[in-house]
């Protein structure tokens, strides 16, 4: 019975003596822990975009605009070849002939220029 009283008194004394210090250590520990945890979460959430903050938004916006202009420019330079079928801009049959027939194949969009009764040089 005496032993129990002694141990309880010792426990209380120890608790009263160490409680403020252990609380401070605990607070420091948890604040450090949270700080590290926050730091690690940030690192892990953007592993592949580490380059991203290097390029400012203004540069990205201008680059996007440049991309659009480039595509428009290249497409407009290509011009007629983007059309569905060939285009005949000019045609001159120098040799004597009976007529010219221009046809377009519907399925392949191929163009046929057929010159009728073209003069035979060899004749």
């Amino acid at each position, binding site marked *: 019975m005496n032993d129990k009283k002694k141990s309880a008194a010792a426990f209380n004394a120890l608790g009263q003596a160490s409680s403020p210090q252990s609380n401070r250590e605990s607070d420091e520990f948890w604040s450090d822990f949270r700080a590290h945890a926050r730091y690690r979460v940030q690192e892990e959430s953007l592993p592949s975009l580490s380059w991203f903050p290097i390029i400012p938004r203004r*540069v990205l916006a201008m*680059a996007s605009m440049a991309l659009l202009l480039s595509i428009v420019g290249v497409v407009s330079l*290509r011009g007629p*070849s983007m059309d569905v079928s060939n285009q005949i801009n000019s045609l001159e049959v*120098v040799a004597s002939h009976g007529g010219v027939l221009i046809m377009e194949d519907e*399925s392949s*969009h191929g163009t046929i*220029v057929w*010159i009728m*009764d073209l003069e035979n040089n060899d004749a």
Partner: protein
Amino acid sequence: MNNYRYQFSLCVVAIFLLAAGVFSAQAGQTLSVRLIHATQQQQASSSGLSDVAGVLQRSLPYNHFSLKGSTSMRLPAGETRSLGGYSVQCSGAQGQLKIQVRRGNKALINTTVALRDKTPLVLGGLPASTGKLLLVFVAR
């Protein structure tokens, strides 16, 4: 500020090269020119002309097509080639291609065309002992 300009310039150059690369890969790089003899025979044939046989058979009153000669050149063109006694001169880019067909010293046909990729252009009606001769141009 200079660093921003440098990065921006790099972005612009890279994007333009990418876009140009994508589009130029789709554009025709080569012009093929073939001389074909078209006749009407009992048996239809177009061996070796699978890419243009359809358009020829559907559009022309002939059923037998045989390849008499072929050549190819890079685009933009600037060359003259001989095919079966005809001289074919091509110059310019695919979108503004000038073609002149000559027989000996005499010009027969002058034309300027814009060719679509893999879409044939046929210049036909050239005289032959039987049937007709055709020149088929395809940009690839």
